[in-house]
């Protein structure tokens, strides 16, 4: 019989087997200047974990990394990814009610943003029973940097992971 050493976080992930809560982003309009409508099916061939960790949510808009400095990105070098997926769960016995928003921007060759501020891609509210997984799909890919912010009226600890995917568009 063999023993396996796992972290507390990994143990929690294995214990929490529950339906997935989903939230839909209210996305801004994306202008398509071509025949993209023909490309209907998306099959990812490569995924990368862009960020993973825990975030202590409170009433302030905080990056997943915990900061409240609006100019700092949560992830950089995200240009190759068609889509981003944010998955996670919140600790605690109370129902989850966490607001999140996704911001993005482009940078020049030196990593300097092309302009001040961010483009807001969308907002969502994660509302699930306690200890349920949630998943948010961020459809607007190929921005260089993203800032994912969360806040909650009731302080919560959120464990989450941000994944970037590259894929085939099939007609």
């Amino acid at each position, binding site marked *: 019989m063999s023993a396996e050493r796992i972290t507390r976080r990994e143990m929690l992930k294995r214990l929490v087997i529950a339906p997935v809560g989903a939230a839909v982003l209210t996305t801004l309009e994306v*202008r398509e*200047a*071509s025949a993209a409508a023909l490309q209907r099916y998306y099959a990812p061939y*490569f995924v990368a974990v862009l960020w993973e960790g825990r975030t202590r949510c409170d009433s302030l808009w905080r990056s997943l990394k915990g900061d409240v400095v609006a100019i700092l990105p949560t992830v950089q070098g995200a240009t190759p990814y068609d889509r981003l997926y944010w998955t996670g769960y919140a600790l605690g016995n109370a129902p989850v009610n966490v607001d999140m928003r996704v911001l*993005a921007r482009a940078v020049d060759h030196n990593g300097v943003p*092309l*302009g001040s501020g961010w483009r807001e891609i969308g907002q969502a509210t994660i509302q699930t029973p306690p200890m349920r997984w949630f998943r948010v799909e961020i459809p607007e890919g190929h921005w260089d940097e993203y800032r994912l912010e969360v806040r909650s009226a009731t302080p919560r600890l959120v464990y989450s992971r941000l994944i970037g995917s590259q894929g085939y568009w099939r007609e």
Partner: protein
Amino acid sequence: MRTQPLTLYVGTLQVEATPKDVLNQAEPLAPTFVNAERCRAFYWTGVKGSDAPIAYTIRAGNAAGWQWSASGQITGNARGWFRVVIKPPAPYDRYRFEVSGAPQTLHSKITGAEEVAE
């Protein structure tokens, strides 16, 4: 085939009523990029200088001339971000990204999704 991002252009242009491409070329036959057959999509992002909309036209073709085009408007507030996605229906060798409108500064970046062998 998979794709990889290729930064094709980063720069600033003074937009005017006269159409010109992002390289400030007014000659309508002058391409902005050449040797772009492997690019299957273009992601044009940036920041506008004023509230006025900017009209854009993207032309694609080869040495014989332009064969496909797409037009639209970049709208938004001053210093607001924009994003235009271009997915041409076929591979083309050369492209021209042309803009016109009320005078304003346009900071933008064009990234191509280039097909590469697996």
